[in-house]
């Protein structure tokens, strides 16, 4: 049976691991390579790196960090931020990543999703969506709008419609990242995660807001997310106590019938 995945998320700025709250106020956490290696040995199922300023600064992603991680981490990892072409994708994959995450660029240039899926297969292309709760309108019937550029620019696009479109374009996986919940430790936005998971045939990853094991369990049991992105609860300096991966998995098993890869 396929297990649910715990995905550690690293926001990398200038080669350093940082932690933000609602996409702002980043504080320094440490060396991303050290953290990745530690979490690998701790039994994390997957890792995602966002070079969070690469896109808004219009520069290419930090390949050196990707290569260093690939030398030490033998579970899948995804890289996002600043990917603007199939050549950029190829460079990231060659550097050792399994998947590419496209966010703002997928909105600006949807053909990039299709080109990536043709070149490397849909399984390589993750579309990450920044979603924000808004009053429902005719243009945004789901009540969730897509934002880009680190939540700084609203697009007027409906999140549920964009999710379906992203899959048609060739995305093999979707990340639903709640801007309202990011870094708040208040739990995922289950409503939008669930409506997208019900609407698309590909795996959906919940993101933004996890502060404890109950939140992760809700994402799996109530919103049917196939994977959950966690970060604060693993390492945020803003939280007094952190979970180890085995502690979190043990807690999840207590909370409900959740299939997980056994801890080492």
């Amino acid at each position, binding site marked *: 049976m396929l297990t649910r995945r715990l995905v550690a998320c690293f926001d990398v700025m200038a080669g350093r691991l940082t932690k933000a709250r609602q996409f702002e106020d980043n504080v320094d956490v440490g060396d991303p390579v050290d953290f990745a290696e530690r979490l690998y040995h701790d039994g994390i199922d997957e890792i995602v790196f966002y070079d969070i300023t690469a896109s808004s600064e219009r520069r290419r992603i930090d390949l050196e960090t990707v290569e260093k991680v690939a030398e030490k981490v*033998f579970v899948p990892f995804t890289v996002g931020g600043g990917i603007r072409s199939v050549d950029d994708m190829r460079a990231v994959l060659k550097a050792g990543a399994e998947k590419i995450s496209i966010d703002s660029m997928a909105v600006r240039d949807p053909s990039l999703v299709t080109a990536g899926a043709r070149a490397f297969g849909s399984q390589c292309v993750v579309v990450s969506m920044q979603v924000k709760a808004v009053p429902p309108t005719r243009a945004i019937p789901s009540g969730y709008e897509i934002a880009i550029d680190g939540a700084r620019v609203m697009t007027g696009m409906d999140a549920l419609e964009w999710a379906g479109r992203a899959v048609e374009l060739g995305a093999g*996986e979707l990340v639903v990242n709640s801007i309202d919940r990011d870094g708040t430790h208040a739990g995922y936005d289950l409503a939008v995660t669930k409506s997208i998971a019900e609407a698309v045939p*590909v795996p959906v990853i919940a993101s933004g807001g996890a502060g404890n094991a109950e939140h992760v369990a809700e994402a799996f049991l109530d919103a049917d997310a*196939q994977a959950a992105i966690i970060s604060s609860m693993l390492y945020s300096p803003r939280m007094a106590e952190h979970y180890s991966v085995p502690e979190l998995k043990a807690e999840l098993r207590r909370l409900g019938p959740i299939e997980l890869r056994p801890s080492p």
Partner: protein
Amino acid sequence: MDERLPVGIVDYAAGNSASVLRALRHLGLPARMVTRPAELVGCSAVVLPGVGAAGATMRSLAESGLDEALDRRVREGLAYVGICVGLQVLFEHSEEDDADCLGWLPGSVRRLPASVRVPQIGWNLVTWTRPPPGLGDGADAHYYFVNSYVAAPAHPSCVAAEADYGGPFPAVVHEDNVFATQFHLEKSGPAGLALLSRLLAPGGVLGC
């Protein structure tokens, strides 16, 4: 100077050969990239990794002439390890791109059923039904899968292990010197590295 023969890793456009190279180096196994037939000479074994589509993989192998070279060398006894698409191309035909494949094993490759989310992405439990001798206890473990298609062998005797996703499917096929996993050995954590080592280390399952 390391006098052991290197493991050849087939390097092609859509493969993730660099990840396999890193995993083998991490295990202390000598390895080198193979991009054309002559580079197969002097290899202790060959690994065909894959993340792309079966059709693209077969076209890429045909362009370099590696399809015929692999066919000849593996029939002569060269140990072969296929990963993901490297398992699927062993069969005669794949529904993906309607591709004719290597045909070393009778059977075909089909899309996963619509009852499950496709692609399958994640860690799935692999159960050994016919563990090869020398694999240790053949303990069941979770490995990392990323696939939209699965093999449908004509003869179930080549299936060494199974996993379940919308029904049982072959997770490992093994016949003589040919061994292939639908999961990513190089990205399956300590369990994947341990299996890779047991396959390719001197005196391992494939007798390299």
